């Protein structure tokens, strides 16, 4: 923003700086959304006692599925649905193995992750040079026109707002509804839930599929909206960060969202600082998002009792009705 006749340069520059802060906030919300969607999916998995280390692989497969769907149909919605479908399908395969066949959750999850990386690269070969139809810029009428605030908050993809609504809905569902209680009890004490007549394995299986679908939605968001292209390995570790977020956020939906924004914010901030010429080694800046997220979330959850209350007691443990 150049200075306009009459306005002192300092003021004009401050205005430019303010605007760049507004854009920083906008970029933060966008970056956080990717992580939050996947982490909330993994939270649902973990609430029923299943750890799925396959997030990265599921997100990659969903990214290529979503990208391919948009290439062929031209519709972003089709892309999101394809991504969710791919995620749910892989979630289902994972679920059959760990829930019905009783395989080790960690080993199976790692295998799924490795498989997803390789498989997505394999099926994606012919899509490497493809491009998507022009991307739409979203904005909320009237609100987007407010100076600074509009640029910061009201020019986002609908999913950015969708994830906030979803967190509220999830909190209500998990803590205020009977179904939510059943879901949590399956993760806390599958034996009790079973004794009460609930099908532990079916509930776990459904939750794992829903979790997979959300990881898939996040993957599709990456390849369709966030970085609209397909190259192999493009999720670049976001699945692992989402996994870590669920633990650091002590399995609380609202904290996951905050943690995701924090991580996204510090990620964007390091580039922003570099752009401003701040003299911090860029290697240290690259490590900053991880460091900041770990420190803040560790501080929030430093109370061991709090962790014990929130961590699903049967996390990672298989359940067999006859045992």
């Amino acid at each position: 923003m150049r200075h306009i006749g009459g306005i002192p340069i300092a003021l004009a520059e401050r205005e430019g700086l303010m605007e760049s802060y507004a854009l920083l906030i906008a970029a933060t919300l966008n970056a956080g959304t990717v992580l939050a969607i996947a982490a909330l999916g993994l939270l649902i998995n973990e609430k029923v006692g299943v750890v799925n280390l396959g997030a990265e692989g599921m997100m990659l497969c969903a990214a290529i599925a979503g990208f391919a769907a948009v290439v062929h149909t031209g519709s972003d919605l089709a892309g999101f649905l394809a991504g969710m479908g791919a995620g749910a399908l892989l979630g289902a395969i994972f679920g059959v193995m760990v829930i019905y066949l009783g395989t080790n959750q960690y080993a199976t999850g790692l295998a799924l992750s490795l498989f997803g990386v390789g498989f997505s690269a394999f099926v994606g070969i012919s899509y490497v040079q493809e491009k998507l139809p022009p991307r739409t810029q979203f904005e909320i009428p009237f609100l987007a026109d407010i100076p600074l605030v509009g640029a910061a908050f009201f020019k986002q993809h609908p999913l950015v707002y969708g994830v906030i609504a979803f967190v509220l809905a999830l909190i209500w569902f998990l803590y205020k509804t009977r179904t939510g209680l059943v879901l949590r009890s399956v993760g806390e004490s599958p034996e009790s839930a079973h004794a009460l007549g609930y099908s532990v394995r079916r509930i776990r299986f459904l939750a794992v599929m829903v979790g997979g679908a959300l990881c898939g939605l996040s993957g599709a968001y990456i390849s369709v909206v966030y970085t609209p292209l397909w190259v192999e390995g493009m999720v670049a570790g976001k699945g692992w960060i989402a996994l870590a977020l669920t633990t650091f956020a002590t399995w609380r939906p609202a904290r996951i969202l905050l943690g995701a924004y924090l991580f996204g914010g510090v990620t964007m901030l390091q580039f922003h600082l570099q752009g401003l010429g701040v003299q911090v080694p860029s290697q240290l800046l690259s490590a900053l998002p991880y460091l900041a997220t770990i420190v803040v979330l560790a501080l929030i959850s430093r109370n061991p009792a709090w962790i014990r209350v929130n961590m699903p007691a049967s996390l990672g443990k298989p359940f067999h009705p006859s045992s």
Partner: protein
Amino acid sequence: MTVLNKRSILKIAAISLVTAAALVACGKKEEAKPAAAPKAEPLKVAFVYVGPVGDGGWTFAHDNARKELEKQFGDKIVTTFVEKVPESADAERNFRDLASQGNKVIFGTTFGYMDPMLKVAADNKEIKFEHATGYKTADNLRTYDSRTYEGAYMAGVIAGKMTKTNTLGVVASIPIPEVIRNINTFTMGAQSVNPKVKTKVVWINEWFNPPKETEAATALINGGADVLMQNTDSSAVLQTAEKMGKRAFGWDSDMTAYGPKAHLGSAVINWAPYYIKSVGEALDGKWTTGQSWWGVKEGAIDMVNVATDVPDDIKKRVDEIKAGLKDGSFAIWKGPIVGQDGKEVLAKDVVADDKFLGGIKFYVKGVEGKVPN
């Protein structure tokens, strides 16, 4: 506690096997073409890539050149490639494998293969090794590189004219002389047509990470840059510019298709002339060690698909630069060149030699920020 019984161990083993099989099936190695009834035994040529051939940039350019090479020599040669070989102990094993499979010319296409290749070359004197971007040689190991900065200069000339904010942005990878040189040369090109230009740089400390490249590009645009360049391997920067209504360049490979509205031109590397020369020499028994650094002159560097809205005088200037580099009448790194601190780094009329170019660790005037150490 989970008790591992015999059945679950078997299941885990089965899953591991299936996964391993799937990964192998996904293909690390690919026999490119079986020789069709060879009269003489065809020369076996192998390539080792650091990235996936599908990166759309660096490795993609190497693999296109490999295909050109096959076209050139037909059934006189057989080529093989191994992709995604990390710059670690794994690299040495791969080179040894390829050597034992009877390959007679082996190309390694990233800096980090330098020491592994040197070791394997010492044990396989009859095989010719070609190492891209390195500096160590042996009797049967030589190096080759391309003058990517020539492409960066031409991109700069276009960028300097097309910027409205007089602020350019570069998404940079790893702070080594090659990348710093490209940032400087890009800025020098821009200043040659628009002295007011400033360049902002954001380092991501990786060659290939599309989401990070996107975030860095977004930060640069938010900071006022309206023309972007990148020294990373994917097309994410160009795509981000497309999405945000700014301009950018393709790098290593032609990236027009990724961002048709944003695309100002692609600074491409064509490795084919060198590969054809090298294999030709090996076939004729004329291969000797050495070091090559090819640019526009040898057909290794080009600026392609310049956007239609770039003014004609700038297009003409780009063509003049190409012609000047070809016949040697124009040198990019010719003094006076002033460093960021205002001190002269190259005196008037002095042309930098390759040693100078290989050791650039400073920013020239007009680049903002500090070089990470």
